[in-house]
């Protein structure tokens, strides 16, 4: 009797071990899609790089240094702030001025930047008239010294010729190279009091005009470098001068990838990305496969609603061009065994598109099973539906951001004749659109999130 009992126990033990070893196939075998996001936020080296600060020395900049009654003058304070930040973020700060050419500045000249005298033209009257800033030269320097941070303070009025043909190439070429190296360009715009002469206003006749009645006009701080430094400068200016009212402050970030992060790598997807109702479905369970792919498992019915939502601020770099087009890649596997322990294998389905993706101001919404509703799927079948969400095309939100302060060369004559108190920047929108176009060229389709739903469909 004892012998029989021992034999039974051995058999039971063997059976229980084999039962444990036969792993459940609750999900199909597939290759995890991984993201190729380059983190633009991090400095490659732990060392602080050099900081180049370029001051636009064209005579029209004088107007920012002279107070205008009734208007707030932030130029002097902001220039002061920039000098301080530049000293803090860089191991070495190099000051240069630029107009028709770029020249290094002596330390004693740096303090003069806040004064009218700094902008007085010392050349001949011919040279002093019709100046145009050689901003393209600064981009070349930034391309040559990509590890440094480059800060440019300028009125940013660009002539048509600077934005077409060969001169345009001189901007696009270095920009492409800068963005490809993972660097970004921040444009900070400040509407400031202005008391001076705005020259170089192109007329339809081909001649140039000047305007003296402007009481305010924007100036710009371009920052070329890594996003950390750009954000630091932007945050500093914003907090010090525009914490209560941002009406006179604008910001855009041009980057090779406006994507902040891949949500899977940082495990930022949770139950709340789906409607709360889903968590109340029978047998609901949320877990990560291989510490990477979040899976919503449940028993659903043909009325189950699945809307996966991602907040824009989780995926889009703040202030960047944003993303104008998202896409999804879908894969479905099926099995007619509804219990995981019975599943021997999964079959790859070919349903075609099942869901659609839309974006509003706050969030990205993936409406599951809109193209092919659940009521068209078979009951009594377990479905494993994996979705990869991609950013396809960068947006142009920065163009819109600055369009209010921009005037085209074709309209500037008419605009000047309207005697504006607040003057706009010539060709600003075109300049930003060039930056956007370059960033669009360097943009690569990026995986921002992956998730799956594993459900058994009932009545």
């Amino acid at each position, binding site marked *: 009797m004892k012998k029989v009992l021992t034999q039974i126990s051995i058999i039971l033990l063997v059976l229980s071990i084999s039962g444990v070893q036969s792993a459940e196939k609750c999900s199909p075998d597939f290759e995890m899609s991984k993201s190729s996001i380059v983190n633009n936020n991090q400095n490659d080296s732990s060392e602080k790089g050099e900081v180049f600060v370029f001051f636009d020395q064209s005579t029209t900049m004088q107007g920012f240094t002279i107070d205008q009654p009734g208007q707030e003058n932030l130029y002097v304070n902001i220039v002061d702030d920039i000098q301080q930040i530049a000293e803090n973020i860089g191991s070495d700060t190099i000051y240069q001025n630029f107009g028709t050419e770029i020249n290094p500045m002596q330390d004693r000249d740096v303090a003069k930047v806040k004064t009218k005298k700094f902008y007085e033209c010392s050349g001949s009257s011919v040279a002093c008239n019709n100046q145009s800033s050689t901003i393209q030269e600064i981009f070349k320097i930034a391309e040559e010294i990509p590890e440094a941070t480059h800060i440019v303070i300028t009125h940013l009025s660009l002539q048509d010729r600077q934005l077409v043909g060969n001169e345009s190439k001189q901007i696009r070429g270095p920009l492409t190279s800068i963005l490809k190296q993972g660097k970004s360009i921040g444009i900070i715009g400040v509407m400031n009091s202005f008391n001076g002469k705005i020259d170089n206003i192109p007329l339809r006749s081909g001649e140039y005009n000047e305007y003296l009645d402007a009481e305010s006009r924007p100036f710009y701080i371009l920052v070329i470098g890594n996003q950390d430094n750009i954000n630091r400068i932007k945050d500093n200016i914003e907090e010090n001068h525009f914490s209560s009212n941002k009406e006179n402050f604008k910001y855009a970030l041009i980057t090779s990838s406006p994507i902040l992060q891949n949500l899977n790598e940082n495990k930022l997807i949770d139950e709340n990305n789906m409607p709360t109702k889903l968590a109340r479905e029978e047998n609901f369970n949320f877990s990560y496969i291989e510490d990477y792919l979040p899976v919503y498992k449940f028993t659903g019915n043909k009325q189950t609603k699945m809307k996966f939502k991602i907040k824009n601020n989780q995926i889009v770099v703040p202030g960047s061009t944003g993303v104008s087009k998202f896409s999804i890649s879908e894969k*479905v*596997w*099926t*099995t*007619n065994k509804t219990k995981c322990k019975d599943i021997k294998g999964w*079959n*790859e*389905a*070919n*349903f*075609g598109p099942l869901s659609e993706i839309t974006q509003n101001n706050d969030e990205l919404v993936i409406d599951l099973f809109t193209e092919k509703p659940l009521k*068209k*799927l*078979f*009951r*009594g*079948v377990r479905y494993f539906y994996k979705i990869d969400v991609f950013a396809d095309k960068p947006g142009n939100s920065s163009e819109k951001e600055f369009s209010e302060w921009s005037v085209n060369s074709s309209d500037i004559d008419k605009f000047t004749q309207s005697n504006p108190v607040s003057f706009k920047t010539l060709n600003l929108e075109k300049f930003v659109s060039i930056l956007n176009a370059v960033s669009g060229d360097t943009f690569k389709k990026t995986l921002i999130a992956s998730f799956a739903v594993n459900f058994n469909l009932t*009545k």
Partner: protein
Amino acid sequence: MNMKHILRSVLLSAIGLALLGWVSFWFTTLNAFGPDGESDLLQWYFNKLVQKEEITSSGMPWEELAVSLYNLLAQMTTALLSTTVVAALLWSIGSHFLNVNAPGKAKFYFIYWIIFTGIFMAIVVGIVFWFTKSAAFNAADYLSDDGVIIISAVSFIYYFLVYYLGILLGTARFARSSILFGNKIPVSELL
């Protein structure tokens, strides 16, 4: 009331039912055993009854999915055949209780037969609907619209014929005029 006549009606009705009803019995048995490899029936179901494209795109082998459809059809034909048998026997037995006390009065009960038959056919339709269109069986999802029409039409015609043969032979001799073409049956010792 002669019990011998009722039993003879039941027997005759059973014979009438069996004349065509065996096909249903055979079909039910076939379905109850489930799909058999690449049988013609399995292929016919795939070609005629189900949503071919949806099944193909689901990636699941038809043979695996067909198990539940076979089960559905086996249960449905069992329900239909049972209903038919019960209806035919009910009428056959009930016909002996019709008050036919004058010549030609049996024809008066034709309206009864029509109503009874109408109820039977409504039950047939209800059974087919319950199996093919309601959420009772998952396999109903596989059926195409054409498949449902084929199943409905065949069931409607076939089970009516089974029922009709059952009552044609099983109805009491004196009440035969109450059913369609009942008076055409020759009167003999056997019938």
